[in-house]
């Protein structure tokens, strides 16, 4: 006897709504548990939940469910990176002559430290070591912004931290893009128009971000400065830019950072409001981190963990030395330099699409690269948010009981 056709198929297949809803609820529970520890940020709870539910442990979140939810992650990242770009006030670098050198030094020294470790201690191939070290320059924008929001942190260290994060993400993205021709040459043995590819990615992403900004200000002129229309305008432009960057195979990260930075620096008529994404965005952020956690596998903490751990340590040391050395001329106190270095700990290079172009042109190289840095990233997924939270509280800028 067959089942009547008005009944659902058995076993029932999950759809996107169900997955999104369950991700939220599971993340909520994990975040709540983290909150009860009084030490862990909610993000750690979201990531741990994803890790437990993901294919690595319980397997309740299947690979296909993860793929279906990818769009949520992309949207969340769009919002986050745009928000980060808005913190990149270039006039600040004009007034504080040490700000840019400090940012460049922090990126450069951590790159050198990570590269040297991978190449000379780990014995890893030069190109792979260079790309992995380049990925390591970037601090995870989502983590620092979410911890900042969770603690309602504000002050000199928080402001500097977000500026450094914006800068080191731009440096890492451009750096990786510039290495693409070499990766391609090795994968295919030929270097057809290598400059064109790098130019397309970098110049194209900058241009896309700028065009989106121009459209945004034109619409804002028409809409006026009411908060609700401006909120919808910002979300609309961000989503459209994420989509356009994907279609044009440009860097979502770079395009959205540029869009955010343009709204901060080029909106001379002050037509745009500094929109707060608030609770609406929180929905997507929870989902993003549960998904991020689901990409972790227990074995990533095993095999090359010692190299991953060393990677994490030299990265932190590289950043810290640069910040400490330049602290005095930059009028930054030693305490601020220390908390700043610690706050820059989170790293999520692979998760934010930075290495997507590598997978596009040389999937094998991408997989090898992932194997090198993945244990470092896995460790930092767990420790990074805790480090940032601790640093901002130590700096006296975060309110430990601020979370709601």
């Amino acid at each position, binding site marked *: 006897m067959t089942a009547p056709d008005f009944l659902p198929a058995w076993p029932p297949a999950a759809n996107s709504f169900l997955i999104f809803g369950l991700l939220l609820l599971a993340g909520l529970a994990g975040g709540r548990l983290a909150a009860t520890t009084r030490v862990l940020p909610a993000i750690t709870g979201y990531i741990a939940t994803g890790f437990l539910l993901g294919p690595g442990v319980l397997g309740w979140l299947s690979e296909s469910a993860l793929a279906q939810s990818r769009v949520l992650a992309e949207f969340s990242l769009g919002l986050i990176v745009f928000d980060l770009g808005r*913190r990149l006030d270039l006039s600040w670098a004009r*007034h504080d002559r040490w700000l840019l050198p400090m940012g460049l030094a922090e990126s450069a020294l951590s790159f050198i430290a990570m590269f040297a470790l991978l190449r000379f201690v780990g014995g890893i191939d030069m190109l792979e070591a260079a790309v992995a070290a380049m990925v390591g320059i970037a601090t995870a924008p989502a983590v620092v912004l979410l911890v900042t929001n969770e603690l*309602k942190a504000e002050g*000199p260290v928080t402001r500097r931290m977000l500026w450094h994060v914006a800068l080191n993400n731009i440096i890492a993205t451009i750096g990786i893009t510039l290495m693409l021709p070499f990766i391609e040459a090795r994968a295919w043995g030929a270097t057809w128009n290598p400059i064109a590819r790098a130019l397309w990615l970098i110049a194209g992403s900058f241009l896309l971000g700028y065009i989106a900004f121009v459209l945004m200000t034109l619409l804002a002129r028409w809409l006026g400065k009411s908060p609700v229309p401006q909120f919808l305008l910002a979300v609309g432009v961000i989503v459209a830019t994420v989509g356009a960057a994907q279609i044009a195979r440009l860097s979502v990260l770079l395009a959205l950072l540029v869009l955010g930075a343009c709204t901060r620096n080029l909106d001379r008529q002050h037509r745009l409001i500094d929109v707060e994404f608030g609770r609406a965005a929180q929905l997507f952020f929870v989902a993003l981190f549960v998904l991020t956690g689901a990409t972790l596998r227990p074995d990533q903490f095993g095999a090359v963990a010692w190299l991953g751990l060393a990677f994490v340590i030299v990265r932190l040391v590289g950043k810290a030395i640069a910040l400490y050395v330049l602290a005095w001329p930059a009028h930054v106190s030693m305490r601020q330099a220390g908390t700043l270095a610690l706050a820059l700990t989170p790293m999520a290079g692979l998760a934010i699409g930075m290495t997507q172009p590598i997978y596009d042109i040389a999937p094998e190289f991408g997989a090898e690269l992932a194997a090198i840095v993945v244990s470092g990233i896995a460790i930092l997924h767990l420790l990074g948010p805790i480090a940032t939270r601790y640093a901002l509280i130590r700096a006296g800028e975060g309110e430990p009981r601020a979370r709601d």
Partner: protein
Amino acid sequence: MLVNTRDFNLAPDADDLLRRCTRDAPQGELKPELTQSMIEINTSVHTHYPALLAELRATRDVLAGHARKMNVALAGGGTHPFQKWSDRKIYPTERFLAVSEKYGFLAKQFTVFGQHVHIGCATADDAIYLSHALVRYLPHFIALAASSPFYQGVDTAFDSSRLSIVNAFPLSGTMPLVRSWTEFNRYYDRMLGLGIIASMKDFYWDIRPKPEYGTVEIRVCDTPLTVDRAAQIAAFAQALARCLWEERTIDITPDLYLAHSHNRFQACRHGFAGTLIDATTGRARPLADDLRETLRLLAPHAQMLGSQDAFAALTETIDQGNDATWLRRAFAETGTLPDVVRHQADLWAASE
């Protein structure tokens, strides 16, 4: 007030700004205040308006320079137009934490910004006389300095909403009608004995004697939008005190206080457009008229003290509107309160 340059909300950077200023400290003194988005600027002692103005401008330039390097800005104004008081952080000194403990939510609500003018007195009895006599002119100070029309995101309809927040404190108001320093000390000792106060700092009066400095302190002024206006108000206070001290035109009687609350409210609510009642003559007249006449009467004193420029600027202010008018105009032009604060910050930092 310290504001960030992103959304122009208050920025908790007082500590960092004060730390940076230790390397090239301006004259006078810079101090933390009750919450971390406030700093107190103290000038050194001055006898002439031009020197005071020069020092204030120099201090402003040092502070504005450091603020720019920190990516924050400073602004004048008696209140921040849209900050939420509950978001404020108490500056962690023993005294401020004790104030917070004692006054509860009032402490964070006290994130308002005022200008205090100290006038040196020859004797303690002179200080008591001036503390009373100046009460007649407190509405004038309020209207001249009023710069807090917006509070917690709304137009309060007041020119100075700041003083309404001060009113909430149990020891606010005016000094009791004591007529000599001896009488004042008797009152002070009783309050001390009853455990109501621990020091003079516990009196949140509009005007009070300050024995450790040998001054009378006028406390009703909002922090003006510019240091120039702050110096002009100090020059007005100096000339007024000189006149009152020399000519003793005010009799210290209960009548002095009879209409004071009404007059004070009128100045807070309507600024120059308020109405003043003289309890002695029973006459009511617009505050602007009384202020113009006062400035005219004080002109010889201003000339003796070298403050003519300040008086000319103040006379112009009566015609063109005070800082509250400027802020409302900025809001009408820009449409958002963050834009108003941006303009406020630009105005404060602008060098002449």
